[in-house]
């Protein structure tokens, strides 16, 4: 035992930082009900600004530190508060998506602002060491970190126990609605919490970067370690979060005692995710979400419920397919290859539409299934891909039990906790399964052949492209069939009200497991094609980060629509196509902002497109003497009627405030249209247009729309953007 204690002591130091981060996450969750997935990103941003002050602009260290902790971090906290506050009472799904979108915003924005290169950052505390006993040397930095965290934890404890702020914050946690009645200013409590939390994040960034290196992704991932201790305290207990953070650090360190490499080391790296997963499953139903009593309002935009007629659908679907088949006439070589990647991506995105958009089960692990498909194809497709189809089917079969495994937590968890569980699962796959040489060929990866099916080789770019069109068409037809069937309705019952669904005979257990298993199987099947596209695949192609990006692109496209998945594939392609860097480098941040602003709209950018179409039609009809097709006019009126009534019954909390709502937003249409015509590339413009167009309708409209307006460069003031009144019109659902 005597050789264990040094590991124990070292663990206390790394644990301190986890504890700090956990407390920061818990602090805001308690008061706002929003889980801050972007916490690590805020830490990362603060670390970069610190570097900029100290090393970039050569300000004295203490001034840099004060600037970050007393100015930058609080401002970020303040802005976060403004951004998240309208989300209180909105569905958990929207909160999660917004938070993930903000994570993506930082990940995209920091390289833009600071440049992408990795840099070294110096510790704010002396790193010289002193001996403890005979074998352990501790640095002053470690000791200082430990003490600083302990003091901050204690300070927070005193603040929450013995001050008015503490009382107010407990009142808000117990019952937000009641607290309001008792005269507690929930807004002020929320703001203070966000500011404190953000300052903690700043410290975390500055304390962690010297050892982790200042890189965009590293800090973000490392701070995910802190999620487990936060969940240990069920996201509300600060003492447990602190203790959990310490415990995690110690356990992780003690594991090192048994091996710095090999399986133990893998487990050590994956331990926080394992802990998160296990905690979530064990706590299960005892985890309740901090929610306002107000029932979540239905998403801000409501498309016309009318499905396209079967005939219209077949026509437009057929046209899309024909267009895709004809594309090789125009496009060749690498560009066609990039479009192929987009097709496969769209097929994968479809599986997420079913899972998230229809069944309401948020998954951050979909690319783990894609990876299973790719690696299985690598193993079993044969040298010339002659067994490719079998390998893909085998992958799908193997994905079924894995899907059941991911689905298992969904039986006891929903919303936020399910999202966290799938995230933990994806990270476990990343750390424990995919790196294994026998699974993936290790970090050098493995090669995957292009398919040969029924004796036909699809090795050439064009033939592989055509095969992938077939794949996407098959997936699309299947998805449309499901959407319109009793199965589709069953999934949506579960999404809209699990309680009512089970009351009306839906076995939630079976339904969830089946949808996770089938969505996983389909993703794995498509994954085989993804592998074949890459030709060589390695674990880095199928990480949590890819799963996250997929979710964001699907949300942006429109998570409840088949067309949304196509749009996701399209957006993905634009990132591959050779376009000028000045445009290209702004795509990720535009996507992130787009996600934030359409988060509340299940139909995503598709809704916007349809809306713009009707708006254009509307303008056209206003021209004197232009013919007005009677059927269309009727349709449009119907949509307007629905909008007005909804406004009148006051369900839209935020919307009520905007009087501008009900007047026709002619300027808005022009704004959106001009954004469209300025843009060189459809996809790059999409999110920007989405942002400006949707300003008033998403709960975040004001802020995000404003930001978007400036990004899109169309300069229209927010007030104009708010004036969106149109419903989706009688447009399509697919």
């Amino acid at each position, binding site marked *: 035992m005597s050789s264990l204690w040094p590991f124990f002591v070292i663990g206390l130091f790394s644990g301190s930082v986890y504890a700090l981060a956990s407390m920061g996450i818990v602090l805001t969750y308690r008061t706002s009900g929003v889980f801050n997935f972007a916490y690590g990103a805020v830490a990362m941003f603060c670390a970069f600004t610190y570097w900029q002050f100290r090393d970039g602009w050569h300000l004295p260290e203490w001034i840099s530190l004060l600037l970050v902790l007393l100015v930058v971090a609080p401002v970020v906290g303040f802005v976060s508060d403004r951004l998240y506050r309208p989300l209180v009472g909105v569905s958990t799904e929207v909160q999660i998506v917004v938070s993930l979108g903000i994570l993506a915003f930082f990940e995209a924005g920091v390289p833009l602002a600071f440049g992408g290169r990795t840099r070294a950052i110096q510790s704010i505390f002396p790193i010289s060491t002193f001996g403890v006993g005979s074998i352990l040397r501790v640095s002053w930095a470690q000791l200082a970190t430990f003490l600083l965290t302990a003091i901050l934890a204690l300070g927070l404890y005193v603040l929450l126990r013995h001050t008015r702020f503490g009382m107010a914050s407990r009142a808000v946690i117990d019952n937000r609605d009641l607290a309001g009645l008792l005269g507690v200013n929930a807004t002020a409590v929320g703001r203070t919490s966000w500011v404190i939390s953000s300052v903690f994040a700043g410290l975390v960034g500055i304390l962690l970067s010297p050892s982790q290196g200042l890189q965009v992704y590293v800090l973000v991932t490392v701070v995910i370690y802190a999620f487990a201790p936060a969940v240990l305290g069920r996201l509300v207990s600060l003492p447990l979060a602190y203790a959990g953070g310490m415990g995690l650090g110690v356990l992780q360190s003690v594991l090192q005692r048994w091996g710095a490499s090999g399986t133990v080391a893998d487990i050590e790296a994956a331990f926080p995710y394992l802990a998160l997963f296990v905690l979530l499953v064990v706590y299960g139903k005892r985890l309740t979400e901090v929610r306002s009593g107000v029932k979540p309002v239905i998403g801000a935009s409501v498309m016309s419920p009318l499905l396209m007629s079967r005939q219209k659908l077949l026509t437009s679907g057929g046209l899309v397919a024909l267009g895709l088949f004809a594309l090789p006439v125009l496009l060749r070589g690498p560009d066609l290859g990039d479009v192929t990647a987009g097709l496969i991506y769209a097929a994968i995105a479809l599986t997420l539409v079913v899972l998230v958009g229809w069944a309401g089960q948020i998954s951050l692990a979909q690319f783990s299934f894609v990876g299973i498909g790719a690696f299985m194809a690598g193993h079993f497709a044969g040298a010339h891909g002659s067994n490719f189809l079998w390998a893909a089917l085998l992958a799908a079969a193997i994905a079924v039990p894995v899907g059941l495994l991911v689905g298992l937590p969904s039986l006891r968890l929903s919303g936020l906790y399910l999202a966290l569980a799938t995230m933990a699962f994806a990270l476990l796959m990343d750390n424990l399964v995919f790196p294994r040489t026998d699974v993936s060929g290790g970090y050098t990866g493995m090669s995957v052949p292009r398919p040969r099916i029924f004796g036909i080789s699809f090795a050439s770019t064009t033939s592989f492209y055509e095969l992938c069109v077939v794949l996407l068409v098959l997936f699309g037809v299947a998805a449309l069939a499901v959407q319109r069937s*009793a199965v589709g*309705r069953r999934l949506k*019952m579960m999404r809209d009200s699990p309680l009512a*669904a089970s009351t*009306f005979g*839906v076995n939630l257990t079976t339904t969830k497991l089946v949808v996770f298993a089938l969505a996983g199987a389909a993703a794995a099947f498509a994954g085989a094609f993804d592998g074949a596209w890459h030709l060589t695949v390695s674990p880095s192609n199928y990480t949590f980060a890819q799963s996250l990006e997929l979710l964001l692109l699907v949300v942006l496209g429109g998570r409840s629509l088949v067309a949304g998945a196509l749009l996701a594939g399209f957006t993905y392609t634009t990132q591959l196509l050779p376009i000028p860097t000045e445009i290209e480098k702004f795509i990720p941040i535009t996507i992130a902002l787009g996600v934030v602003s359409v988060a509340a709209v*299940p139909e995503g950018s598709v809704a916007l497109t349809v809306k713009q179409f009707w708006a254009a039609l509307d303008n056209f009809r206003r021209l004197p003497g232009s013919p007005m097709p009677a059927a269309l006019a009727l349709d449009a009126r119907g949509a307007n009627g*629905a909008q007005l009534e909804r406004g009148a019954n006051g369900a839209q909390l935020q919307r009520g405030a905007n009087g501008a709502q009900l007047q026709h937003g002619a300027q808005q249409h022009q704004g959106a249209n001009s954004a469209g015509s300025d843009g060189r590339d459809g996809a790059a413009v999409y999110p920007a247009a989405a942002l400006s167009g949707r300003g008033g309708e998403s709960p975040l409209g004001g802020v995000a729309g404003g930001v978007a307006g400036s990004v899109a460069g169309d300069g229209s003031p927010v007030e104009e953007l708010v004036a969106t009144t149109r419903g989706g019109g009688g447009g399509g659902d697919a």
Partner: protein
Amino acid sequence: MPEGLLQAEDVTVRFGGVVALDSVDLEVPSGQIVGLIGPNGAGKTTLFNVLSGVIEPNGGRVLLGGTDVTRWPTHRRGRAGIARTFQRLELFDRLTVYDNLLAAWEGVTPGAVLGRHKSEGRARVAEVIESLDLGALATRLAGTLPTGQARLVELARAIVTAPRVLLLDEPSSGLDDVETSWFAQVLGQVAGARDGEPAVLLVEHDMSLVMEVCAEITVLDFGQRIAHGPPEQIRNDPRVIEAYLGAEIEPEGSAIEPEGAIAP
């Protein structure tokens, strides 16, 4: 006494220290509309949750047509003929009204999820939509409806499954007078003693509605059953009057006003 179609026997539910239901008995005979009343927090919704299987009781049994269904999961009870509405509306917000009904019908009909009995389902939905006069709302998204219409759609969604027992949790809360009387009318039309019509258990704050439509009334207070009998008897029961402290109960029976009720 006729054996109840749906019965709760000795049901006890505890939430931590709170005893939400304390050895409660209740019978809903076939062909009857039974009222369940009591002040806020009396345990009415909790009893509904026990009957429909949403929560498992700490003690006691639930019988449906003489069969012990206490351990049955919610969905199985739904298929066996227990349908309900919810105090806090639980419509499928992003489905149309039509699809809300169709989905419920498919949910309780064996094989329907696999695409069988399609025309039967559509016919049944059309029938209910017509009888409740919901035609104008059929293509609206349920989440966009104002409360009055939403409550009506919840009723229709329960009816469409042709249940044996219908549990209605405060169906008139949030409705104005006109809507309430329309609701009472619809209720009389779809439920009662005629063949194929469901028995009803009605939780309601609007006393005049309860007194008007219910054959029998059970009164809960602090999780205990404090009275049971026909409306006239309940109206004059001193314990009931005491439970509704501060409220007037006139023998002619117009109104009791517990919190949140709508004065007629």
